Every structure is written in structure tokens, then in C-alpha cells.
């Protein structure tokens, strides 16, 4: 494996299916990680849920498609979708360019804010990524 360095901000929590979650003003903002966008390469399409959809933790809620692959989006927390990032419709490349910023996917009203604590920290996720790459 070539040595690649990824950005995993400390203020996010992570899933083993490569999503990140960040609590902001009582909402759980979600996206895919720097590692995920790098593995997928150029994202060309993002399929998102409807605003108002109720998600269970672990449920597939959308699809992110690149020139190489199609990946399922898995909800890290249970809750109601209150916003989706409509900018991605015309500019899916934001997922590659700013995975933790303008490339966010959805905002959830979480059923249980505490549940986010059960997800991986940046450090734990980094180890998870390294283990998976067979480093």
C-alpha cells in the first residue's frame, strides 16, 4: 500500500462503514469520510433520502456513486432526516473536495444524542482504516 494520509477531524465520530457524524445545534450532521471519498474517487452522483424520512441505525438511506463504484450510505444513528444537502445534486464533486464541509450529506434529528458516543473516535477510526488496508 502506498502511504496516504487522510484527514479525520477530532470533532467528528466515525462508523466502520466510513460515515462521519458531527453534532451541531442539536442536529447530527453526516457525510462520508476522507478515506471513503478517496477510495471511491470522483463522485458523480448522490442519492439522498426524503426530508422527513425516519431512519434506524444501520439502515441504508442512500447511495453514493463514483466512476469506480457504488456505495451504500448507512445511517449511524436513528432519527428523522430534517435537511439534505441539495447542493450535491449539481455539484457531487463537493463530496471529494470538502467531505466534512460543503460535501455533507444529511442532517438528522437524532432520537438519542448520546448514541453518538458509541461511535468511533478519530483515533479509533484511523486504526480501523489502517487495519483494513492491511498496513
Amino acid at each position, binding site marked *: *500500500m*502506498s502511504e496516504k494520509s487522510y484527514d479525520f477531524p477530532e470533532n467528528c465520530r466515525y462508523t466502520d462503514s466510513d460515515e462521519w457524524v458531527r453534532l451541531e445545534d442539536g442536529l447530527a450532521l453526516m457525510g462520508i469520510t476522507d478515506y471513503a471519498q478517496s*477510495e471511491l474517487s*470522483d463522485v*458523480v*452522483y448522490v442519492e439522498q433520502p426524503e426530508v422527513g424520512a425516519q431512519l434506524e441505525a444501520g439502515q441504508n438511506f442512500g447511495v453514493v456513486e463514483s*466512476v*469506480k*463504484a457504488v456505495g451504500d450510505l448507512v445511517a449511524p444513528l436513528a432519527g428523522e432526516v430534517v435537511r439534505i444537502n441539495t447542493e450535491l445534486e449539481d455539484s*457531487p*464533486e463537493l463530496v471529494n473536495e470538502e467531505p466534512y464541509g460543503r460535501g455533507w450529506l444529511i442532517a438528522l434529528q437524532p432520537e438519542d444524542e448520546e448514541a453518538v458516543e458509541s461511535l468511533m473516535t478519530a483515533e479509533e477510526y484511523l486504526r480501523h482504516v489502517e487495519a483494513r*488496508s492491511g498496513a
Partner: protein
Amino acid sequence: MTQARSGLVFEEPLLFERSRPGRRGLSLATPEVPQADPADELEEDLLRDDVEGLPELSELDVVRHFTRLSQWNYGIDLGLFPLGSCTMKYNPRANERVAALPGLAQLHPLAPDADAQGVLALAAELEDALAAISGLDRVTLQPAAGAQGELVGMMMIQAHHRARGEPQRERVLIPDTAHGTNPASAALNGMEVVEVPSGPDGLLHPEALEPHLDERLSALMLTNPNTLGLFERHVEELSRRVHEAGGLVYLDGANLNALMGVARPGDMGVDVMHFNLHKTFSTPHGGGGPGSGPVAVREALAAHLPIPVIRRDGDALALDEDRPQSIGRVHAFLGNAGIWLRALAYVRALGAEGLAEVTRCAVLNANYLQASLSDVYARPHRQRVMHEVVFSDERQQPNGVTTADIAKRLMDYGYHPPTVYFPLVLSGALMVEPTETESLESLDEFVAAMRAIAGEAAESPETVTGAPTTPILRRLDEVGAARKPKLRWTPEG
């Protein structure tokens, strides 16, 4: 050694751009009968004064246009086509001859059974041959391709559970090494898809099924050999556990070229499977069709076969549509008859021993490539492979050369690129399926090209990352095409 050379190929505009007002392909004689006025014959809303925008060309314009485009093309008749999981084997010309026999090609699809006994007998013969190859009992020839075969299989499995009073069995287990169409087929039929992980050895282990062996289990949808080219060694135990839990086993038969004539899916516990006649049985892949994806089932599911079913009535054959438990009609008439007739010609030409020899040679060829390339390209697993072999770009990545670059560079050596970035479980996958129809010399030429590319990746990576240089078009903007597709031509461009 095979090497692509630049020849005389032409830039070619669209037919719309070649159009000149008033140009015609042929001039019709003045009719000798009175001409009808469409306005007297048709409803008003079906009429329009002008048809705008149709290209106007001479016959020669059109002939040159399509001949030039055909020169841009690549096919098995030009060279080795190592597209993994697609079984791009040679399509023997004898198949074409058989399918074009006037008695078959010109038979009217609505001919009464009594006048179509010949083609019905051939259909029944192919059904019997596929049943024998699969180790299952009954076959439908109707599905038009593998993916439709999968859907038909899922519909029959669903009908089976419902008929037994277990309509809640809607969950389909699909390994992460299965073909990509499998989850889509199950989902299209309204079933719930659960992905089950393969083990570190690339195989599905019975324990991976454990959490899902309950009253919601409908079926395990298995691809064997799987998309890593590995035989699922635990298939009998997997089948046993699925059956014990009340589920059925579906086999994606796309990789049957590794089993045909040597091992029967029915003996492995498979209950339903589809065949890709355009893969294993040497019928043309076409430009997206027509294909043919027959489905075989155990007797227990026969009541659900699509209608019509061929029934033996004494010495005669008849089409039976009176089957109340059938999932219904899935294709007009008897499927793509022109295609399955070619497959029957192939089966007849080779016979049982010939089909087994096909399998042995396909497996031998893939293992020959593995043995000849494993020292220069990384392989995720050490086992012998079946009919295809998967490498990765792990050893080339440090020099900035990726699977996509290797695939593009192969075009410069005169080869169609292999399947890339699939299966998804392996990063940078490069999946090669040589098929049995390539000779030792042909395989050695391909090995030489792959080794040359590995050498270039080490010594002059820019040669590989800048490829291809030989085809009429070089690197295409795949990202731009996906993000901002131009879906139709407009006059101003």
C-alpha cells in the same frame, strides 16, 4: 507478438452533422397507383406537416459512416477479450448457420403448435440439456438475459414461499463477492437484501449466515465460483443450513464456464439457477442484446415456471398456458429463439465430453495466467482459481500507476481492457477471464504484454499513466461524462 498498430481510421462526425438538405439515399419511382392523403386516413392528432431534424444522406454517406465507426471497435474476432465475469469466448460460425436456417429463421412466431413441432422439439432438447448440466429438473428458456433470469428466479422463489403459506420469507442473503446484479434483482422483486461478508480467504463461511437463518429467510443468492474466481468450497454446508432454516439456494450461473460438465449445481444443493447463454454457451453478447438467460429449478418449484411451458402430448409437443400457479409471462413467445438456437448448436457440436473439456481448458487457462503473472502483479489469495483470476494494482500504486492506467495501457498492446475495480471487496481489482478459446500462444502474448506493462510501471510510469496512445480517442473524460452527460445532440452543439 500481438501489438496494436495505428492504421487508417477516420474521424467521423454524427449523421446529423453529415446531413445536407435534399440529399437522398435512393429515388423512388413515381407510383403508378393513386396516392392516399394521410389526412383522410388518420386522426388529426396523428398528423403533422413537417418532420424536422432527420438527417438527409446518400446511401454511400451512411455506408461510410457505419463502416468507419466499425473500425473503431474491438471484438473477440480481433483479439483476446479478457473481460472478467463476461466469458467473452469465441462464437463459432456454425451457430450462425444453424440459427439462420430458413425453417427456423422464417417461422412465424404465431404459427400453431402443430406447424412448429420442429422448433418446439429443439427447445425441449435444450431444456433437457440445461437440466442435465445443472442437475435440476425443469427449465424455462424465456428470460432475455441473465439479469431477467435472476428476477424470474426470485419471483419463483417468492411464489414458492407464498404458496406454502410463508409469505414473510422475503429476505435474500447475498455475499459481498456475488455479481453486482444480484441485489438489484432481489430488490426489484420487492425483497429485502442483506449483504453477508466473505472471509479473509475470499470464501463465504457458513457462520456468516447464522444471524439470518430465521423465518424471514427466503434465499441465499450465491455466485459460484465467486467474483474473486474462487470456488465456494463450503457450498454444501451453506445449502444445508439454508434448507434447514426453510430457505432456498439460488445460483447465479454467470460463472458456469468453470463448472459445466464437471460439477452440477443441483448436487451442491442449489434449487434455482440461471444460465447466461451469451457467456457459457457461445452466443453473441451483442451491443447489449439480445441475450438469453434460461432458468432451471427443482421439481418442487416447477408449478411456478413462466408460461407457456412446453408439454409433451403423446408424440407431439404443445405450449401449455393453463398453469394457475405460474408467475406469468415474462417474454413474448419462447424467449429469444434466435439466440438459444445458437446455444443448442454449441451443445450439440461439443457433446457432454466436449463441454467438460471446455470447462477444464477455461480453468487451465486462467490458472496459467495466474502462474505467469503472480510475480509481477499482486494477488489477494493464494488458492488456485477457477475460470478467472483477479489481480490488484498494489505493487504498481507506489509508482502512481493504478488499475485504470494498466487497463488503458493494455489497449496500446492490442487488448480490450479487463474488468476493473470489481469485485469491490478488493481495492484496485483487475479481473481477467481468458476463456478456453485462447491458445497457448495467445495467452503467452497476453502475458508478455502484461509483464511489459509491469516493467513500464516500474521504470517509466508516465508511459502507463499517459496511455492509451494508439486508439483513435485517448483518455476520455469519464468524470465529466458522468457528472454532466450530454444526452442528445443539439444543432448548435
